[in-house]
């Protein structure tokens, strides 16, 4: 467990201000925030890369605030990998074991195992500059994981990678997290990543933590306008995906079934943008695959736009212009139909 108490640090004109945070054992914890929010600095303070101005950091109940970083037992992965350019993939991964004076044969076995696990065993003798971004990040992950750290700290580990590589690595990082008894702390500005990976999420802004909770809590009940704007998602529903035909995936949320054209299986988060949902007073024939009947439970007047919550088994947020809202003569408790296309449904 990592416990951070009243942590403060000034950094040029920027400051971290009395951060309090608890990260549970073996949790996948994501710190989500816009750039300049201080999330990287916080991560580097946990690692011991900088000294704190005040406050304490505990790892497994031990006060680590002033422990030199080589004795903290934390792994660190940077966005731009920071591989040692003069060492091969094998030597990079073996580095931590060699520092611990592990027997040569054992180093060989363990590094080979680790390379297999991350699918980079064919790259063992290559230098980092000859690798792709994804391969470099896999090497960096392997290098950090091989010393069995108590905590693996990752600073925007996927931000420099292309979409496909990122999706692959997200899946593998989830598997790695299950395989190793290690607490993962992952810093990102990308909320897809947070949704896909996090057990719990902390939202950070201007050097403060503004909200901590699991993904549904944060996305459904943002504590303030900043969190709501930043996560930028109105409709987010948890469910289990399974294939339904060649091109269609069916997501069962427990109360409704949603169709999507994205290919996924297993537990997922579903998002639908409110402007992609069409509302009508009576059932009509459309090409939309997702059709649900529900009651209006909330009406919020935002001026030109009216925000409605329709309970179709899951709460759905829908936006209407003032004119349509008046024309449809809507009020709370009214039964309406909602429509949205399978292509408008995104899964994470």
């Amino acid at each position, binding site marked *: 467990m990592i416990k951070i108490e009243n942590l403060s640090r000034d950094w040029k004109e920027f400051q971290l201000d009395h951060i309090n945070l608890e990260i549970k054992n073996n949790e996948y914890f994501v710190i989500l925030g816009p750039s300049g929010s201080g999330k990287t600095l916080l991560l*580097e303070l946990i690692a011991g890369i900088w000294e704190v101005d005040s406050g304490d950091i505990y790892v497994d109940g031990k006060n680590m605030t002033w422990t030199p970083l080589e004795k903290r037992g934390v792994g660190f992965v940077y966005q731009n990998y920071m591989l040692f350019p003069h060492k091969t993939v094998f030597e990079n991964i073996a580095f931590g074991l060699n*520092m611990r004076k592990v027997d040569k044969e054992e180093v060989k076995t363990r590094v080979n195992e680790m390379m297999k696990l991350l699918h980079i065993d064919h790259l063992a003798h290559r230098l980092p500059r000859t690798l792709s971004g994804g391969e470099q990040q896999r090497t960096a992950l392997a290098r950090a994981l091989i010393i069995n750290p108590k905590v693996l700290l990752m600073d925007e580990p996927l931000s420099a990678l292309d979409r496909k590589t990122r999706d692959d690595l997200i899946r593998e990082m989830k598997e790695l997290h299950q395989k190793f008894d290690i607490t993962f702390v992952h810093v990102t500005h990308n909320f897809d990543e947070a949704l896909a990976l996090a057990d719990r999420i902390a939202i950070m802004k201007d050097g403060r933590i503004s909200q901590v909770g699991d993904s549904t809590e944060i996305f459904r009940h943002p504590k303030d306008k900043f969190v709501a704007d930043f996560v930028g998602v109105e409709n987010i529903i948890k469910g289990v995906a399974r294939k339904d035909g060649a091109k269609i995936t069916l997501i069962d949320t427990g109360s409704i079934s949603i169709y999507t054209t994205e290919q996924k299986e297993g537990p997922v988060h579903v998002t639908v943008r409110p402007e992609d949902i069409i509302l009508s007073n009576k059932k009509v024939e459309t090409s939309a695959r997702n059709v649900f009947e529900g009651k209006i439970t909330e009406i919020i007047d935002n001026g030109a736009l009216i925000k409605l919550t329709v309970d179709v088994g899951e709460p759905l947020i829908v936006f209407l212009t003032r004119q349509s809202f008046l024309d449809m003569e809507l009020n709370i408790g009214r039964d309406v139909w909602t429509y949205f296309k399978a292509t408008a449904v995104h899964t994470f």
Partner: protein
Amino acid sequence: MSALFLSIYAALAATIIALLFGVPLAYLLARNDFWGKGFVESVIDVPLVIPHTVSGIILLLVFNPGGIFGQPLSQIGLTFSDAIPGIIVAMLFASSSFVVNSSREGFESVDPRMEKVARTLGSGSLKTFFIITLPLSLRNVVVGSIMCWARAISEFGAIVILAYYPTTAPVLIYRRFVDFGLQESIPVAVLLISVCLVLFLIVRLLISGWKTYDKD
């Protein structure tokens, strides 16, 4: 011939001393900001811009047997005026900035976060310097040292004032020129140019064959 040999040998000694003190100083300057840093940087660069005869006069002032450095050092048997240590000091003063500046550039090109990562993997800070930072900036350190060495061999102004004897190659050339004229000074001059040329050729070869890790 012995003058040429003395030049090369004293310059080598000056380079080694410059490396011993210059490399840690370069690392300090590359990684830290501290009060008075600008002053230290200026002191390092000053010998490059002042006339070398002025350097010689400054050195003679502090290193003569009554000077602030000369006196305590003469107690342990080190004399500087008209002695080999004097030649080395004069060379060091003129050329050590090459080692400091070039090494510093090398260290600055190594991302400090890479050192931090090495340390999270269990490597102490001194060890990290020797297995990560130094190998990655070795090219700069080596180039700086060779520049330093070459510059030390060619030092004349400061040596002429601090240690006219024993004779180094540039002083010998000057003396032959003054005493016997152009013809007599040419052989030594040609020899000195040849030695320096060969030196730089070797350096070029070394550099071109040097593995760089940041480029394809």
